[in-house]
């Protein structure tokens, strides 16, 4: 973990070995919950960490301490991504594993980070590589997760799936699959929504792709039923000329950053 000092320099304030395999991803929780990190690893676990304020000596030496609050051991395969849910959903996170299972955990007491309960298990049928929560906090949208897969199997199954929470069944159900994405997906990211009526999703695969998902009116028969989406691809950039590994949005959803095997970071507007 690096901290930025007053004069703008970055200092490494903590570094610790904990997982027994490569750590794939780390992600921050919203600062409203304190200084909280989650990590996931090849060792089939995900962990939640909290920063402890240590002795004043440590502060002077520029060190901070992180303690593990919980280990999530439900996965039987490598956990490939972990992401906290938008803060209006409380203290919740989702993990996805190489065996295709997405798990959603919740800490009912936000002050007690050691108590997490598994709320949902979603079976995606494809090896999962990445997930992204839809950050939109509008009441009009139910919680939504996009799941990407880097499965190499020859069946041309869509490599990006969208799951939506159904108020009636109290479960997550598959709402859409992006049929046009057939190459392994390494990263996905929903863009922040500033009052748009549709969603924007960026996909990192063999190129950079940006999709819009427009909710079509739900079937009149089942209010609270699944939303159907109109999917359009609005951009496709192959400038990396190689696998694109990560995509990330700025806070207003107006700039997308992508990184690829060509060793470049590109910004798209």
């Amino acid at each position: 973990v690096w901290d930025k000092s007053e004069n703008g320099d970055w200092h490494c304030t903590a570094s610790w070995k904990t997982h027994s395999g490569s750590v794939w991803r780390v992600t921050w929780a919203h600062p409203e919950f304190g200084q909280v990190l989650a990590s996931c690893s090849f060792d089939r676990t995900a962990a939640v960490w909290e920063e402890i304020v240590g002795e004043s000596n440590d502060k002077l030496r520029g060190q901070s301490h992180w303690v593990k609050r919980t280990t999530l051991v439900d996965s039987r395969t490598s956990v490939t991504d972990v992401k906290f849910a938008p803060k209006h959903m409380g203290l919740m996170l989702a993990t996805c594993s190489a065996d295709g299972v997405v798990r959603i955990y919740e800490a009912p007491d936000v002050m007690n980070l050691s108590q997490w309960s598994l709320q949902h298990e979603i079976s995606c049928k494809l090896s999962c590589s990445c997930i992204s929560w839809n950050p939109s906090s509008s009441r009009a949208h139910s919680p939504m997760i996009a799941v990407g897969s880097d499965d190499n199997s020859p069946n041309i199954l869509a490599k990006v799936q969208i799951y939506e929470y159904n108020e009636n069944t109290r479960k997550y159900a598959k709402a859409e699959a992006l049929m046009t994405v057939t190459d392994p997906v390494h990263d996905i990211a929903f863009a922040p929504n500033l009052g748009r009526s549709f969603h924007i999703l960026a996909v990192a695969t063999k190129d950079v792709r940006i999709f819009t998902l427009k909710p079509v009116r739900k079937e009149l028969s089942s209010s609270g039923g699944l939303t159907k989406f109109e999917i359009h691809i609005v951009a496709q950039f192959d400038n990396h000329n190689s696998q694109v590994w990560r995509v990330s949005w700025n806070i207003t959803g107006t700039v997308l950053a992508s990184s690829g095997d060509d060793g470049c970071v590109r910004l798209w507007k």
Partner: protein
Amino acid sequence: RLLQVSKNYRSVIRACMEDMHQAATSTRDPALHSQYSTQVSILSAMELIWNLCEILFVEAAGAGPLLLRLLDWVRLHVCDVDSMVREVMSSENPAKHELFWNVVDIFVLQGRMDEARHLLSKEASANPTSVNMYKILDDLMKKMPVPGLGNTQTLTEMELKWQHWHEECQRYLQDGTFASNSHMESICKILLGDDDAILEKKELITTWYHFLVTRLLYSHPTVKPMELRMDLFLGRESSPESLDTILMAAFEFEMHQVIKECSIALSNWWFVAHLTDLLDHCKLLQSHNLYFGSNMREFLLLEYASGLFSHHSLWQLGVDYFDHCPEYGRVYLELHIERIPLNTEQKALKVLRICEQRQMHEQVRSICKIMAMKALRNNRLGSALSWSIRAKDAAFATLISDRFLKDYSERGCFSDLDLIDNLGPSMLLSDRLTFLGKYREFHRLYGEKRFSEAAKLLLLLMTAHIAPCSFWMTLLTDALPLLEQKEVIFSAEQTYELMRCLEDLTAGKSDKQKFQDDVETMKVEMLRLALARNLARVIVKEGTLEGS
């Protein structure tokens, strides 16, 4: 008025240019020097573009004045003749100077007739043989009709005059009047608007836009703005640079194109955002509705303001900019303001003030929560409490109050007394907090020896269920010193109440629990004894009073 604003912008740009120039010349570091120099050239290009836009769009003068402005623009920006002029003028015999004719030509090309004639007079005095030619040329130049110079003629009158003059020049040229002096002949040709003659002076003109304006001067002096479009640009370089495309778009009155090209060429949104805003105020921009920023002006302002937020102090300016974006300004501000690093309390308070002024309640709550969490982690309970009160976060306030009470049970004293004492109405935020406040009040009363009031409060805390059950034991223990006082404090009724509380408290416990906790048991015993004694005393006291 808007014109004045535009001029202000330009003077700001010029001032920056000056500063940069200073910095460039004063630095020894070649890297820095080249960096500053680049900045200077960018700034000068910006001023050039802005000036042209001001002339064409903001001022939008009629035919004649437009030309004059354009001439000014060319003179100011395009050609740097001053050094050349100085050189020639300061020489002993200007007419003999090798650059003499260059200077005359450039004056003519820029429409600076008086200065050209002045120089020519020197030539005339030096070369008596060409006096006749000179006189004719001088006359032609003097008589040249220049539009917009305060004359009240109509456009048609002007056109007529100009036509007449043009013919006169033509006659002289064809008559071979200037045949013996190639310089004068070429000047005459220029006066006639002969493209080739003008092109011959390429080196002096240097840029295509200078050429454009010169051509305009000598071929269409009463040019109405629309006609500008029809001029061909004789591009001498094969691929236009970005500055060229921008200026071309400006001359063609394609405002949106200008803005677009500037956006691409410049790395900072300052220029386009402010220029577009100005043009918008001039009511010149049609509003296309873009879904990502409502209209062009707002889109650019949003971009510019967003950029400001990454700066540690300029973000406050960004706030004002967002305020002026009617459609998306607020939501952009909401997003950005939450992300400002809150390293100090003052900064946090500043940010909060901004949010509160704009009724951004969610952001206020969020920021206070973050600050409260930070304080709590650092064990600064008082700070955490005041942040949760500000956030109106009852749940968190309860949590912190519990911590306070726990601390008290462990250490026997309170931290942050000032804060708790001065809670005031915010005490009511959460029950626990109310209890904390009242409990502290009890201690204060006791300290001030206002025992009967303290006693009443203590009892109230239990009977009104303000105190959590877990705390009753502590409260009853607090009652002990009051019971042990020489003077009787608790009335009979109050004592009965206290006894009832004690029984309620111990009733729930099983026998096993009672025996396990020795300290508890002892306390209970002591209490029972004290209560009984007090009861005895008070009955006697009350009985006695009633008796007398």
